[in-house]
């Protein structure tokens, strides 16, 4: 079994599902012969032909609207936004239709679609190619918002997203697209969309994160371990609907929590997690909930972008602060 990267795991999941389900169709800009600008759809066009791997005209609204239309007709449509920064023109279709069609028609019409997009900073890209805007979708009922953080989870969660009878927004942290390889059996096994993944057990502090920042959190946990601090690391993976129980359980044990994400702080999804803690776990908290996030600014062009992104060091400092507090 070959070792594969996260982006290869995406391709592997798409290929598996397309091979096993005729009704799966991929569409977007450059997804065909070119295999996508990140090569997520590499080889699919040769395998499945131009009517299942469809290059669209350059219009994200078209992609989203046609995806909704396809999905209502029993085609499991997987749309690609080339970068998360180009997802805005999809919002009307996602918020007003994908997320609502089932509810609007009392179940008569459904939208089993996936909206994929590379996500986040750290690859020295131009403006609009580095945003972390998952937050735009987490307040929209009727959606699932998923962010994998490893090749295996990318494979399993994407399969689950495709098979889900409802629309899923699937963000892929592009910074770790090719960061490392791991063995991912191509067995068509999906992962659940309703749980957070506890990546590391710990007893002193809980680090909650998703996407590319999982790396910084695991590194931070290592560093903290070196100083005798035991950090639990939770990858939220499916932001909404949220599995808060896993987080609550952990904080019940540790009494301390650091939420880490790349998006700007204010009204980032980290706020929801901190709010739940304040609401449901207040008496467990031994220290203020820390948020280590991007600043409330637009991620700068690349000469400054590392100054924006939450660093391992910032996570470590915050974790220690929670320990000093109590």
């Amino acid at each position, binding site marked *: 079994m070959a070792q594969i990267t996260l982006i290869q795991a995406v391709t592997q999941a798409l290929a598996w599902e397309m091979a096993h389900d005729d009704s799966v*169709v991929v569409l977007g800009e450059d997804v065909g012969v070119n295999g996508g600008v990140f090569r997520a759809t590499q080889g699919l066009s040769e395998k499945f032909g131009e*009517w*299942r791997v*469809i290059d*669209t*005209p350059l*219009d994200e*609204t*078209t992609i*989203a*609207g*046609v*995806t*909704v*239309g*396809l*999905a*209502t*007709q*029993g*085609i499991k*449509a997987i749309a690609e936004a080339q970068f998360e920064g180009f997802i805005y023109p999809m919002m*009307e*279709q996602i918020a*007003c*239709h994908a997320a609502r*069609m*089932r*509810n*609007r*028609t*009392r*179940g*008569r*019409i*459904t939208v089993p679609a996936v909206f994929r997009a590379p996500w986040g900073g750290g690859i020295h890209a131009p403006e609009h190619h580095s945003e972390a805007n998952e937050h735009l979708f987490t307040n929209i*009922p*009727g959606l699932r918002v998923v962010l994998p953080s490893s090749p295996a989870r990318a494979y399993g969660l994407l399969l689950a997203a495709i098979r889900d*009878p*409802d629309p899923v927004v699937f963000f892929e942290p592009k910074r770790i697209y090719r960061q490392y390889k791991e063995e991912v059996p191509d067995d068509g096994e999906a992962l659940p969309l*309703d749980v957070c993944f506890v990546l590391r057990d710990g007893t002193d502090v809980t680090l909650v994160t998703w996407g590319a920042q999982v790396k910084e959190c695991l590194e931070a946990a290592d560093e903290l371990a070196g100083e005798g601090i035991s950090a639990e690391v939770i990858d939220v993976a499916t932001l*909404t*609907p*949220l*599995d*808060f*129980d896993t987080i609550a359980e952990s904080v019940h044990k540790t009494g301390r929590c650091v939420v880490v994400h790349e998006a700007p702080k204010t009204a980032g999804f980290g706020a929801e997690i901190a709010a739940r803690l304040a609401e449901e776990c207040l008496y467990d908290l031994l220290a203020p909930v820390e948020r280590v996030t991007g600043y409330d600014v637009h991620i700068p062009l690349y000469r400054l972008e590392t100054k924006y992104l939450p660093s391992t060091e910032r996570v470590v400092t915050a974790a220690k602060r929670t320990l000093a507090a109590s």
Partner: protein
Amino acid sequence: MTIAAKFEIEYLQYVDATGKQVRKDLPKFAQDLEYMVKLYKLMVSTRVFDAKSIALQRTGKLGTYASCLGHEAAHVGLGSAMLPEDLLAVSYREYGAQLYRGVQPREVYMYWGGDERGNDYQNEPARHDFAWAVPIATQCLHAAGAALAFKIRGEKRVAVCTIGDGGSSKGDFMAALNITGARNLPLVAVIVNNQWAISVPRKIQSGGPTLAQKGIAAGLFCIQVDGNDIIAVRKAVGDALDRARNGEGGSVIEAVTYRLGDHTTADDARRYRGEEEVKEAWAREPMIRMRKWLEDKGAWDDAKETAWKAECDEWMDKEVDAYLETQPQPVSAMFDYLYAEVPADLEKQRSYALSLEAQAH
């Protein structure tokens, strides 16, 4: 001068405002008087239905309602041209087309009466059509997506979308036409140009002499028809459906008509348009001319008109009763159709809402 491309847009009319037939080459369906009587009857029932809706709203039994007064030829014309297996994506006032395809008046009332169940059309073929789409023009891309699905699966079906003169300005309408042309999709777009988008007149929407020409941008077949002449509408849409079904590509049909009523019951058109204009429009409305044309051919008369209207009244009364008898949905209905299964996190909120309800009773 080297010419890169040339285009021409036809204007189609068979029966003028006075009921006079202005062309000899009647389409085949229009030579069948029985069929034409059937279409006329649906135009009448649509108008009776519409009047009933407005009455319901005026007496506080319906929320805001968008009337179709004056659009009967355009709507029934396009609906009747479609085959059952085709798919319809409407805006919100195209009842004439929808009734033809099996939507029940009670469903329309439920929808405008604030109940999602109105969108759960019970009868085929409407059952496989899209629901009313408030965000203007968005339904056109759904139709394009459906057309793409038909093409992918090799089905001989056509998607039809309707859009207003106002809606034709929205970028996604143009985008729907564009992918239709680029991928040669079986889609027919009908622009129901009723001259007004709430208070905004046609000329503010576009600088072009026709709205049909929007299809030229996408390389589609374009035609403008008298939208008050059901024969012209039925013929143009029918031909477009044939072409689309045969893989010959999509079309844009501009049906020129007039919104005789207010935009919705929440609107007062006297604020922004003159009575003179409306009076003139009444002289061109679609029912009188068709009735005259049928009467001239001996296929219709006063007695039939009276009898049919009475039948329609009776039908609508039954529908209104059915509507008014409908109990509101339980609070759980807010939660139960969001996902195939209620997610655990949402289930907590659902229980809480139900417990509040239980306390209240």
